[in-house]
């Protein structure tokens, strides 16, 4: 035979064809894997195109707040990519193991390892290119939807919206996923190397050894699991106030160990219960269903716990991310009462300017250049009046102080003279406050302090300043902002008769102003002048900057939560779906036997659906409980956060996770039915 002497110059066409067909076959049986790959590319593109979205929405980003947010997202893409990489490698190894026999056939036909590796590389390349292309197309459209959400979060109109494609994100996706698929190939080669030919050809799918007879131990494990999980919750709740880090560390560890114990015992306990109930055990094909559970007791323990932890991360992040985002926005309507505020804060080393206005002028910045309407004011403080005066939580304070020594909770309160107050309020067009000589009033800007202030109004205390004792003016609580601020928290400010301020320590000085002309040119002029001046001791907070920085924070929290949350979600969904699908194809024979025994497909469908419901349901159930505890714990610290907003965020997050999970469940059910042919 002449070909025996021929050096290896195989035309690769038949191998190309073979690779194509192999991919098509895998795609048919494991479409969920390709769907997940596509989804991850789509996710990756969408969240990396955020900066292009800002541009397309015409969002001004003079101080690079948004750029910062979007580069954080890109940085986190590295983590996302690692998670995706782990998923893809896992899934690929999984699929490769199922192709052992096929690999064995190639080897008996005399394919060398290098040829086999090349064939696998062709397949990986094909899968990679296909999922990358499809994912990018999907991503381009998903990014448009994301821009609409961005616009809504940033409170922008859609006037300047245009269809956008981010080439930076495309290049990033191609590079990241290119590297990922390269690693997948390396893993494939390694995996293949580990298989011997005998393994490939004759390795039958091994059944798990049944672990009957150890039920007492399993029950003990179950009890221990419950004790650990409940103990973990209790520990976190009780200790969280004193030492958050150690509470989360120890409590979290208890939760994780408890979860693992739970999954290593749950199926056994369930099987025992199902067997004990003789009436239902012998009904229909429940015997079969029970044995199906019993046969997977071992593997379920490990993977169930892992999936449950992933789902827990997913649920918590999808809810806490937008929750935090919304929380930093809470009270935004009071964040920018003026077009701009210039601060002069008194640090310890800085000299006190008796006339900050003059000092500001000396830096080279003339406020008259940008504004005709401006007002300045000193704000004072005294050690005698601290935040506990308003909040009244003296008894809690020392307890916290012990553990947060660097950060005492009892700050001196800000105090402002009534005339100063009225002057800067006039700039907002607010009516002046009249204050009697022995009265004081309280003004606050942001929701976190609201409840405390309202409680104070119901039960006011006298304010002692030196010799004078002041009482709260009737209805003397105002919800107003004194300045532009980008952290929406305040302790409340006390308004006192003007002459009393002379005995107090100056705390800081604010200069509030509104532009004379329109905002856009006003801002341009302002920043131009500001950067030319040598104004190191002063800080500028323009309305534009406040809005952009808060929006950037909001977007970052929301998107980061969603990005990571969805990543964990599709990871757990895909792992679970692949496991169940392969389990189904392992069980083809068992179901075939049932059919021969005359079991109707209706009964088999019911049994399958019951098995899948348990395998999908259990990790989700545990994840929901765990994340509910953590979310409640975090939301407890969101003071002044409206319940309605909380409910919407929890509802939306849960809905999103629920729907995607359901899609994985349904696809798995339908896929299993196709594999089992009923």
């Amino acid at each position, binding site marked *: *035979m002449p*070909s*025996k002497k*021929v*050096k*290896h*110059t*195989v*035309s690769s*066409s*038949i*191998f190309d*064809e*073979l690779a194509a*067909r*192999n991919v*098509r*076959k895998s795609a048919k049986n494991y479409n969920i894997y390709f769907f997940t790959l596509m989804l991850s590319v789509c996710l990756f593109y969408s969240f990396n195109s955020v900066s292009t979205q800002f541009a397309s929405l015409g969002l001004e980003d003079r101080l690079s707040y948004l750029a910062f947010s979007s580069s954080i997202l890109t940085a986190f893409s590295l983590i996302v990519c690692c998670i995706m990489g782990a998923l893809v490698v896992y899934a690929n190894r999984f699929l490769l193991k199922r192709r052992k*026999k*096929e690999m*064995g*056939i*190639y*080897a*008996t*036909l*005399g*394919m*060398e*390892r*290098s*040829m086999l590796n090349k064939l696998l590389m062709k397949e990986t390349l094909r899968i990679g290119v296909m999922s990358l292309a499809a994912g990018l197309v999907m991503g381009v459209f998903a990014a448009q939807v994301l821009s609409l959400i961005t616009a809504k979060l940033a409170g922008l109109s859609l006037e300047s919206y245009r269809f956008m494609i981010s080439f930076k994100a495309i290049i990033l996706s191609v590079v990241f996923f290119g590297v990922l698929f390269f690693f997948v190939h390396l893993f494939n080669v390694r995996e293949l190397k580990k298989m011997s*030919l*005998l393994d490939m*050809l004759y390795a039958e799918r091994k059944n798990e050894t049944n672990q009957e007879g150890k039920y007492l131990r399993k029950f003990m494990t179950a009890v221990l699991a419950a004790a650990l999980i409940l103990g973990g919750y209790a520990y976190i709740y009780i200790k969280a106030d004193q030492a958050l880090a150690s509470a989360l560390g120890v409590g979290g560890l208890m939760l994780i160990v408890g979860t693992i114990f739970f999954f290593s015992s749950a199926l056994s306990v369930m099987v025992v219960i199902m067997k004990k109930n003789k009436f239902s055990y012998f009904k229909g094909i429940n015997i079969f269903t029970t044995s199906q559970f019993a046969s997977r007791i071992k593997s379920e323990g490990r993977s169930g716990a892992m999936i449950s932890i992933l789902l827990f991360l997913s649920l918590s992040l999808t809810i806490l991310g937008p929750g935090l985002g919304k929380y930093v926005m809470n009270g935004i309507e009071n964040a920018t009462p003026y077009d701009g505020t210039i601060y002069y804060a008194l640090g310890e080393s800085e000299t006190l300017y008796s006339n900050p206005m003059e000092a500001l002028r000396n830096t080279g910045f003339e406020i008259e250049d940008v504004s005709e309407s401006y007002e300045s004011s000193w704000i004072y403080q005294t050690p005698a009046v601290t935040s506990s005066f308003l909040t009244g939580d003296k008894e809690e304070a020392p307890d916290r102080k012990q553990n947060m020594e660097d950060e005492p909770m009892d700050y001196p309160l800000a105090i402002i003279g009534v005339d100063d107050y009225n002057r800067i309020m006039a700039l907002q067009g607010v009516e002046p406050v009249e204050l009697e000589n022995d009265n004081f009033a309280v003004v606050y800007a942001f929701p976190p302090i609201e409840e405390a202030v309202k409680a104070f109004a119901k039960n006011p205390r006298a304010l002692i300043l030196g010799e004078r004792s002041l009482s709260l003016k009737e209805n003397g609580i105002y919800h107003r902002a004194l300045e532009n601020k980008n952290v929406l928290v305040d302790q409340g400010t006390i308004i006192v008769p003007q002459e009393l301020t002379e005995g107090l320590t100056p705390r800081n000085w604010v200069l509030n102003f509104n532009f004379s002309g329109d905002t856009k040119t006003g801002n341009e002029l302002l920043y131009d002048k500001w950067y030319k001046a040598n104004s190191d001791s002063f800080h500028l907070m323009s309305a534009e900057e406040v809005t952009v920085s808060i929006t950037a924070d909001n977007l970052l929290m929301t998107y980061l939560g969603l990005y990571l949350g969805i990543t964990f979600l599709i990871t757990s969904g895909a792992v679970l779906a692949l496991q169940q699908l392969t389990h189904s194809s392992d069980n083809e024979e068992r179901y075939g036997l049932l059919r021969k025994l005359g079991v109707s497909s209706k009964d088999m469908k019911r049994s399958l659906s019951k098995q899948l419901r348990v395998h999908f349901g259990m990790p989700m159930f545990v994840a929901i409980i765990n994340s509910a505890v953590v979310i409640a714990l975090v939301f407890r610290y969101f003071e002044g956060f409206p319940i309605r907003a909380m409910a919407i965020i929890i509802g939306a997050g849960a809905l999103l996770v629920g729907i995607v999970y359901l899609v994985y469940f349904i696809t798995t059910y339908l896929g299993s039915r196709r594999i089992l042919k009923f």
Partner: protein
Amino acid sequence: MNPVLKVENLQKYYKTKGAVTKAVDNISFEVQRGEYIGIMGASGSGKTTLLNCISTIDHATAGRIFINSRDVTSLNEKKLARFRREELGFIFQNFNLLDTLNGRDNIALALAINGVEVRNIPRLIEQVAADLEISAILDKYPYEMSGGQQQRIACARAIVTKPSLILADEPTGALDSKSAGMLLDSLSLMNEKKEATILMVTHDAFTASHCKRILFIKDGKIFNEIVRGAKSRKLFFDEIMQVISFLGGDKGHAF
């Protein structure tokens, strides 16, 4: 002329939890070109292990195997792959066709792996299909074929590269008697017309009666050897049955 296959003092031991199982215990024999040899034995007698060692799927513990005067026990993996595709053809009990490829492409793959030029491939396939009378099913996919049809495609795949030795592991094991008959006819045809050397492992006396020579294996050792010679197949079959009943001793259902 050198024998196609020469097995010398072959041993294969398995260690399982301290106990050593001698699956193949010092077996030696030769197969000449053009032979059609059967290996018979009860399940667990070591016949499949012997075949796996010869077919380079498994490694022998000791002893040597020469195929076409080359010691396969000393070949490295890369050389083994080349050796397999050039010198061996495989026929398995469960066919082992690739279900992503139709009959034609399954055969073509073996040629392509062997580096046959693409323009020669269709001609070689048509020829082997005509010889084995499988032209009609060439374009079907494995799942559209009966077991017998799949096995005959597998035969075509095994012989199309003109290997020195064709190894068949229970080729009729998964077939009904009619398909088995057709397959055995194909194998005989390959042996007689195409001068293929065939080594077949089976525990079925009827299947074995198509061979020209039969080795009986018991507990990893060669127990007996019979040659068909000029005997009719019926007579040969009776002779096989006699050896079997002798082999099984008082256990009537040894096979």
